[in-house]
């Protein structure tokens, strides 16, 4: 017997014994906890009410508004064409179909940014991308779009432009409602997406 075979056997055995001691990573498709905080601290997920209003007016097909408040609140009022996914149902199948679809930008909103932000964090943890949070939520929506304040004379030019936009947007969201009122709210149907890509295989 060649001596090297003993060495080979020993190396293989040591490698295998090592596997017993390395703890197994959990079989999840979640974002590692070490990366989550970094993503949370990035401000890029926040969009302003003006940006959202602009997108709605432009009828951006890639925009999907998601109302994270409970259904009872949603039934009273919500943004046009918004879909209700209460925050406690984001992990269910019905909630999952809206998130992470390529080509759609999901904007989450609630009463103010807090709840939507928390939902965003959970979605990020589930490794779902292309989600945004409307800063300030519906309260800010009312304050800025529905009841915009006239800027002071000393304010810079840009705030007057913004004000003009908001006035137009306001007409769209309140007055124009009569025009679009008889249009049926179409439910956006998404193809069900597999949660995590798993390699297909088999012989």
């Amino acid at each position: 017997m060649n001596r090297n075979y003993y060495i080979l056997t020993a190396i293989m055995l040591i490698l295998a014994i090592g596997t017993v001691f390395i703890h197994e990573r959990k079989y999840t498709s979640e974002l590692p906890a070490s990366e989550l905080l970094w993503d949370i601290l990035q401000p890029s997920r926040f969009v302003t009410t003006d940006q959202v209003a602009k997108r709605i007016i432009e009828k951006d097909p890639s925009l999907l508004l998601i109302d994270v408040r409970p259904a009872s609140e949603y039934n009273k009022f919500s943004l046009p064409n918004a879909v209700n996914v209460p925050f406690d149902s984001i992990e269910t199948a019905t909630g999952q179909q809206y998130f992470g679809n390529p080509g759609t930008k999901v904007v989450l909103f609630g009463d103010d940014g807090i709840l939507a932000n928390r939902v965003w964090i959970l979605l990020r943890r589930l490794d779902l991308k292309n989600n945004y949070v409307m800063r300030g939520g519906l309260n800010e929506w009312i304050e800025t779009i529905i009841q915009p304040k006239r800027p002071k004379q000393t304010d810079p030019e840009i705030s007057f432009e913004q004000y003009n936009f908001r006035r137009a947007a306001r007409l769209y969201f309140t007055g124009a409602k009569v025009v679009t009122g008889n249009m049926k709210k179409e439910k956006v149907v998404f193809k069900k997406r597999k949660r995590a890509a798993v390699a297909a295989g088999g012989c």
Partner: protein
Amino acid sequence: MENSIKKNNEKYINPYLGGVLLGIVMLISIFISGRELGISGSVRNTVVETAKVISPKAAENSTYYKKFLKKDTSPMSNWLDYEVLGVFLGGLLSGILFKRIKKPFIEHGKSITAKRRLIYALIGGILFGFGTRLGRGCTSGAALSGASTFSYGGVVVMFVLFGSAFAVAYFFRKLWV
């Protein structure tokens, strides 16, 4: 005598070297594509394809073909076909490198004729082909790749396959010994 054996033996690489390299190839395959090797799936694809060519209607109505006809649009379903193409090329390369390529010939044990060997090969092939579909893969797809990814079914197939071959080996010893 001793010399000739040695010369013959050197044509093949050390089996442990082959094994370690094969394991590494599987790891690379997992690292890149998330899956391991397989052969019989591509034979199945060929069967499905021919069925489609010969009688598209019958293929569409057959419950088995239907399962695989749908998938044909996705590139992943062709992965195996490309891999099997590679297996041919790799075998050829090795054959050239180690000078094993010969004119078409039939390898058979001393106690049987070439014709019988072919008949047995055909029967064996049919059985094996049938078995691969029930076992969801062949020795490479189910046993080798399945066991190395710790699949319960893969390990079971590995042991049952070798076990059953051992169990019946005695009855067919004339073919090989």
